[in-house]
């Protein structure tokens, strides 16, 4: 085994192991932003493994796509999760045992198949140009799949916006929508806020030396 091949092998193990660790941390953190970016880390590690396996374009494009997607994921999770930064320790799980068992079973089953099944040893030619081959495939035999993807994405865009948005320019006051907030805790005027000098907030109100 040459040095370069050894380095590549070690790198594959490091990234492979890293992807699993990062994936596990996704569900071990209370901060939604961290969870999303641990997932991104897992994707990046898998992308690097792909690069090392000669699927260079796919590995890089996975990183490119997921960086955007996971940032959006983080933004949405922060938007819709109570306590999004995990300031209060929390546990948002149910049917924990079932889930654990299912996870382990899925892992064991798939790993067993992976270890037992016989796969032919036909590695990809390092001199090949996988990006160009993918392009030819897309424009040639799989042209319909390619165009179908376009239609699917169009349907996704329209569907997503129709579901998520309100009719018309969303956000403008519309019939039936709530009036401006009358939140008892919202600032209503100067008197609503005790001056920091007197009130003190959670023990932080400053005092003079």
């Amino acid at each position, binding site marked *: 085994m040459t040095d370069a091949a050894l380095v590549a*092998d070690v790198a*594959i*193990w490091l990234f*492979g192991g890293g*992807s*699993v660790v990062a*994936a*596990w941390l*996704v*569900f071990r953190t209370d901060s939604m932003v961290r*969870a999303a970016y641990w*997932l991104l880390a*897992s994707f990046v590690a898998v992308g690097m*493994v*792909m690069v090392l*396996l000669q*699927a260079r*374009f*796919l*590995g890089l494009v*996975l990183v490119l*796509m997921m960086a955007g*997607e996971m940032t*959006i*994921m983080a933004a*949405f*999770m922060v938007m*819709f*999760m109570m306590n999004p930064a995990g300031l209060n320790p929390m546990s*948002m*799980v*149910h049917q924990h045992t*079932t*889930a654990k068992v*299912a*996870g*382990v079973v*899925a892992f*064991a089953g*798939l790993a067993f*198949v992976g*270890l037992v099944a016989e*796969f032919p*040893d*036909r*590695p*990809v*030619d390092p001199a090949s140009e*996988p990006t160009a*081959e*993918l392009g*030819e*495939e897309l424009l040639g035999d799989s042209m319909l*799949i390619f165009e179908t*993807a376009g239609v699917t994405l169009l349907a*996704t*865009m329209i*569907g*997503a916006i129709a579901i*998520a948005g309100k009719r018309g320019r969303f956000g403008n006051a519309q019939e039936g929508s709530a009036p401006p907030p009358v939140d008892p805790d919202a600032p209503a005027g100067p008197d609503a806020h005790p001056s920091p000098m007197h009130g003190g907030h959670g023990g932080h109100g400053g005092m003079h030396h």
Partner: protein
Amino acid sequence: MELQLLLVVSAALFGIGVYGALSQQTFVMIMMGIELMLNGAMLAGVALWGVSGAGAPKGQLLIVIILTVMAVEAALGFALVIGIFRTRQADMTEMLDELQG
């Protein structure tokens, strides 16, 4: 040997994804579980393509399709979360059950 270990790694990713998708209560966290499962699937696909599939273009196409599925799932998933939250102020599956029941 390399292939087998990569498949074990992808099985681990898939297993963690299954655990996450089943155990989490919020929609978005469930989506993360699903994305992890797809991540494992992609890794397995590329491993088979690179080590055993002699770099057949169809293998790459499969990964591209998985990527598309992920994008579609994410976009529609988030849209649903917004839509549901807009109507019910609920972001957890169980809260949804209660509201339905």
